[in-house]
Structure formats: structure tokens, C-alpha cells
């Protein structure tokens, strides 16, 4: 069963867009959608969480799940408004989501509601801004060390 079919069957009102490549679901339904993928499509691994900044008003979070046999990647996408990007967390069910979501929070500023440790992971905690946003302003000085020559 492809993810599109499975999700349309299980939760028709949550699917916003579906194709062979990916399924876009409503942000608040992502936990259920991931569960459907695990149960119906055999997704055993949350392979990767990516955030994509789509200015001026959107932000995407892209989940790539991996099926072991036959090996395939299943893709879920979630769109959230750029002004208030909030997505429910998957960290309670998929341990790999814990760090993946923290990284997305760190670099893109997407908040994952219910995340056990919603803090920066790569950058220092007092870093300003989210670097992977398209309008990121490069820092001039950090703790007395100037960042530009």
C-alpha cells in the first residue's frame, strides 16, 4: 500500500495533497499520519527530518520514513505559517525525532509542541536567529569575538 492510499483511507480529512513522491498532511495530524505509515506501510525508521523555509509566509517540515523491505523512503510534508511555525512532536514515538526536531528548531526556528527538550542543539543557547531562514542576518560579534574581518 502506498502512503497516499493508506493515508487517504485512514484519515481522508487530514490529507492536503498527495502524490507518489510525498503526502502533505495537516500539521496537527502528523502524529497520527506517522502512526498510519508505521502500521500500514511498514515504516520502521524515521530517517530524516528537514525543515524548509518558504518565504514569505510558509514553512515546511519534511519527514522521510524508511521501510526496510522492500527498501523505500516514504515522505510526509507539513506546512505551517512562517509567523508561528508549530508542529506536534514525534519524539515520544520515534526516538530519532528527538534530535532531528531539535536541529530543525535550532536552525529554522520551527517549534515542536510537546517536545521533551525544546532547546538548541548545535548552536549555543544564546545564539540569535535561525541561520537556515532565508532572511537570516549574519552575526557581527559573538561574546567578544568578531565574526567579520
Amino acid at each position, binding site marked *: 500500500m502506498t502512503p497516499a492510499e493508506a493515508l487517504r483511507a485512514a484519515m481522508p480529512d487530514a490529507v492536503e495533497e498527495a502524490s507518489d513522491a510525498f503526502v502533505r498532511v495537516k500539521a496537527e495530524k502528523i502524529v497520527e499520519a506517522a502512526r498510519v505509515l508505521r502500521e500500514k506501510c511498514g515504516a520502521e*525508521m524515521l530517517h530524516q527530518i528537514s525543515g524548509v523555509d518558504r518565504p514569505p509566509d510558509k514553512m515546511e517540515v519534511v519527514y*522521510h520514513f524508511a521501510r526496510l523491505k522492500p527498501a*523505500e523512503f516514504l*515522505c510526509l510534508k507539513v506546512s505551517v505559517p512562517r509567523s508561528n511555525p508549530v508542529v506536534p512532536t514525534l519524539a515520544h514515538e520515534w*526516538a*530519532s525525532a*528527538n534530535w532531528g526536531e531539535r536541529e530543525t528548531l535550532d536552525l529554522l526556528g520551527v517549534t515542536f509542541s510537546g517536545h521533551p527538550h525544546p532547546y538548541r542543539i548545535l548552536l549555543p543557547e544564546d545564539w540569535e536567529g535561525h541561520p537556515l531562514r532565508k532572511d537570516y542576518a549574519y552575526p557581527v560579534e559573538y561574546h567578544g569575538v568578531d565574526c567579520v574581518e
Partner: protein
Amino acid sequence: MTTIQGVRLDEGERAAPALPRDILTEELVFNMGPQHPSTHGVLRVVLRTDGEVVLDSQPLIGNLHRCCEKILESLTYIQGLPYVDRMDYLGALNMELGLVLSVEKAAAVEVPKRAQYLRVILCEINRVISHLFAAGQFGLDMGAFTPFLYMFREREEGLTLLNEVTGGRLLYHYIRYGGVTRDVSDDWKRKCIAWCDQVAAHMDEYNNLLTYNHIFLNRTVGVAIIDRETALRYAATGPILRAAGVPRDLRKDMPYSSYEDFDFKVPVGPHDKGVVGDSWNRHRQRLLEIEESLKIIRQAIAKLPAGDVANPKVTRGWKAPEGEAYVASEAPRGEISCYFISDGGKAPYRARMRGPSFYNISLLSEMSRGLLIGDLIALMGSIDITLGECDR
């Protein structure tokens, strides 16, 4: 959640083991790293211990965050490639392949057969070198210094081979969109086969010195078992997953770059000693994978087709058309993948790199509970992380 010295520690899902409290003891908090001989770089691990027993640990990363993804978005396609090399500096060619494959898929670029074979040959040499380093480093963590040097001997020879083709010793910038930069000579092919023979001949030496050493077995067999479920939950890939008994190797499961042409096995744990998923099996897994890689190199050199080594359509100012792709490939430390989006501009719109070490090391917090400090070193050494791709 507990906060110690300004560091927030995970409680995690599994509680700390209950220890017999005969004597009133005090917990110690250790900062292991960023400068510590066995953190393999600038990983910082905060340990909460009861004497030698680790109650909880928290790996803190980001000390080597080098802004790879932002740079890929800021520079042109060809300019961005060297930065991917620097993600996993031990398996640099495999990192390049990770980015290039997904760009090629999104842009539907054809790669000449000879270039695909060359990629396979050089990536496998790189994998052998990387695994030799990892296995030796693990021995070093266990206190055996000499096997590391013996493995470095073969590693240096391999580096010389790569150096001859690519011009770099550690970072290569060899794989380009639609092909590779340089062709190999017949002389080089002979040298490469000779090197394969040399490595194969020395495998017994490594095994005698390290792998089947009685003390080494005592230190690693049954220590820090990462089972199938834990590995999958944390999306740990590569030798860790295979040592845990999951036969997932993208070279077999989702063949890329003509891997389907070659005949090789995917070694899966448990191996002849120990239990599935323990530190020894992860170490042995790497050594077995070296042997398989040598097989692939030999076959690829024997079957190397004639032709171009690069797609002539991909020029200096080449841009990918609009589109996106997610392709994963098997790097030495696990699955490297790139989620690539192009908007047709001169730079990728987004190139999200998956560093396998990032996911592999996230296991540490859960797996370390209840281990001795010596065992924790075994766990960290057998996971074998590179901070460059962990922090990117």
C-alpha cells in the same frame, strides 16, 4: 529533567538502574570532552556517575557546527561540493556521492558508466580506509596502541592511491555532478589491485592482534548491546544496524551508481563471538565489510568499461532545473542522504544533509545507563562517530 552545571540532562525513557545502596555514596558529574582522548573530536558528554557506574549521560554536540547547509544554499553548485567533503573527513568521497546522487536524480543527469564504476572504486577504497581507521581507533580506546599503527600502514597506502587520482590526501573534491574529474591509468589499476591484496593479507594480523585478543574479547563481548529495536528507533544505520542483525545495506537494497553489477555479501551480526549488537560485533562488522569492499574494488576494476568520465552537459556554471529528490547512499558510518530542492537558481534552494553520526550518537544517552566508564568508552568507540557530519 535535571539541570547540572547549566546543562539540561535527559531523563530518557529508561530509568537509571537501581544500585544496591549499602554505603551512602555521592553522585559525581563528569565532563567528558570536548577535549578527551576518546570522544573522537569535540563531542562533549556529561556523565552522571556513581563511582565508576554511569547513571546517565548526555552527549552535547555542536562544537563543530560548520554551517554546511547554509553554505550549500549560498554558493553555486560546483562551489558547494568541497564543503560536503568536510562533513565526514574520514569518508569524504562517500559524502560527495551523497549530495551528488540526489542532485543528479532531481535534475535527471545521466552519469557515464565508467564514471559510475570509478565512483564505486574510489568510494570503496575510501570506505576501507575509514573502517581501518575506525577499527584501529576502537583498539586505541581499548588501550591497544599498536594495532592502530598497523592499520594506519595500510591506510597510508590507500591514501596514496586516492592521492594519485584525485590530488588530495584526505579531502578529494573528485566526484562532480554527472561524473568525476579525472580518469585512472592502467598503472594505477595495478597498484590498486596490489593494495587490495596487501590489505587482505593483513586482515589476519589485525584479527590476531586485536579482534580475537583475549583481553579485547573480555572488554567488548556482551558490552553495550544495541538491539534491533533500539537501533531502528534511533535511526541508527550502517555497521551499528547491521551488527544488530538488520540486513540493511543501501548498496544492496537501493542500488545506486551501478552497485547492482557487483557480487558482494552484506555481513550481518551476530558474528562468530559475542551476542548480536554488542561492541565486539560492531568492530567485527567493520572488518568484515572491509573484505567485502575489497571484493567490490577488484570486480569494478576488472569490469571497468571504456568511455567518458563526465557528462559533457554539466559545465562550470551548471544549474539544476526545478525539482526535488531524496536519495540515500551507504557511507562508512551509515546512511548519508540529501534532501535536495532546487528552484532553478544558481544555488540549491535547500540541501539538507543527513549525517549518520548525528543519529548514531543520539543512542548514547539511553545505551550508557548502567555501564562502567570503561564500557562507555567501548560503546563510544564502537559507534564510531565523526563530529564533522554529526554537527555538519
